[in-house]
């Protein structure tokens, strides 16, 4: 029966917590960048006209969106190991998270692509631009700028989801919290501290995204209005 909270005990582990937070942040940023890249490829495949690529991408998105991340992580870590591909915990965690977030990114970016009016494509083609040039310079920039807020939310969720990788012993913030909990038995305190840490990390991610957005989209930076 514990009636008094003791925050001092778990806070004494602050170096471990800091390291765990850094791992969480590192994992989040890595998977965000890779997931974004793969997601854009997926979105382009799904919005294109070539049937085969669109269907494969479609099946991939549906498979990821309708199965839990935890199961996906287990398949990548334990499942692949049992058929011969032994991956380190960090690699497996990154791989599973990238595959997961790319599917969601793909859907968001695809909506952005489809919001670019056909008349833009016509104008670009009539200026002599080739298909890939139109995609790279006329379709993708406004599409991504338009869905930037949705992407930001998605990657903040991704950062929160990195906590699930604690289940395969990735030494991120939640795993560190579990360890401290089993050492000190101050469970309420440690999880409250860590919850606060995640809130701080969410804020940090949002600021980072806002900064990247301002840098990448000069129109947004100058005019301040949505596209």
């Amino acid at each position: 029966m514990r009636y008094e909270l003791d925050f001092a005990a778990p806070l004494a582990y602050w170096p471990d917590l800091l390291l765990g937070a850094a791992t969480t942040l590192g994992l989040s940023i890595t998977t965000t960048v890779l997931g974004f890249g793969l997601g854009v490829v997926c979105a382009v495949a799904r919005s294109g006209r070539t049937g085969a690529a669109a269907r494969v991408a479609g099946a991939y998105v549906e498979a990821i969106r309708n199965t839990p991340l935890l199961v996906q992580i287990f398949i990548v870590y334990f499942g692949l190991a049992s058929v011969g591909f032994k991956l380190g915990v960090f690699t497996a965690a990154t791989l599973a998270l990238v595959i997961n977030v790319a599917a969601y990114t793909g859907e968001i970016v695809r909506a952005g692509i489809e919001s670019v009016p056909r008349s833009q494509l016509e104008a670009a083609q009539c200026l002599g631009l080739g298909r890939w040039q139109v995609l790279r310079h006329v379709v993708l920039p406004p599409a991504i700028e338009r869905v930037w807020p949705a992407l930001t939310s998605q990657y903040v969720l991704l950062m929160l989801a990195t906590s699930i990788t604690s289940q395969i012993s990735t030494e991120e913030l939640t795993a560190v919290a579990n360890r401290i909990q089993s050492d000190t038995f101050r469970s309420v305190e440690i999880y409250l501290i860590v919850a606060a840490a995640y809130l701080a990390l969410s804020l940090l991610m949002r600021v980072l995204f806002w900064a990247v957005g301002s840098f990448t989209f000069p129109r947004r930076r100058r005019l301040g209005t949505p596209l």
Partner: protein
Amino acid sequence: MIGLTPEQLLFLLRGFGWTIVLSLLAFAGGGVLGFVLALTRVYAARPLRVLAMLYIRLIQGTPLLILLFLTYFGLPALGLVVEPMLAAAIGLSTYVSAYLGEIWRGSLEAVPRTQEEAAACLGLKWRQRLIHVILPQALKIATPPTVGFMVQIVKNTSLASTVGFVELVRAGQMINNATFRPFIVFVLIAALYFALCYPLSAWSQRLERRFDVAHR
């Protein structure tokens, strides 16, 4: 079949059953609290509105896993005896309440203001307006995203395995410890989740399309 004995498959299916039970519990618990939150955010006095908003932001900014651990370890600290299923249900309900609260707040606010005005001008009191005019319309608007969120609830029950509740994933881990065939076990589990989630997703998309057309 596929290297698993019938007993093992049955064990998995029983876990699957508990997944469904937990999903329904979380939806019910989270739904009731979420409904109260939504009404608070739209109709209550400012301090309560702010409180509700803070609660939602707080819960949405916390990983579900941490919420579950807080519930599982925290409630015993308050003197309550909590076994995995109760901890999972409470933790998940809290999580669900924040998200459904947001979705339903959006649905309430999406009902055109003119409906509220027309009802008021007819002399209906607040509770009558809510029950007979606002809610029926908000319900229609809320259905596609709510069905879509049910998919999230089902997937999130998988985390209940971490506090020892024997739903599908935990059952799978136990089978895996006995058979050492993780690939087959977890792919099979993924397939079971897919079988439950995909129809819900498809239904949600169909509802969204139908609602879009009706609303134009």
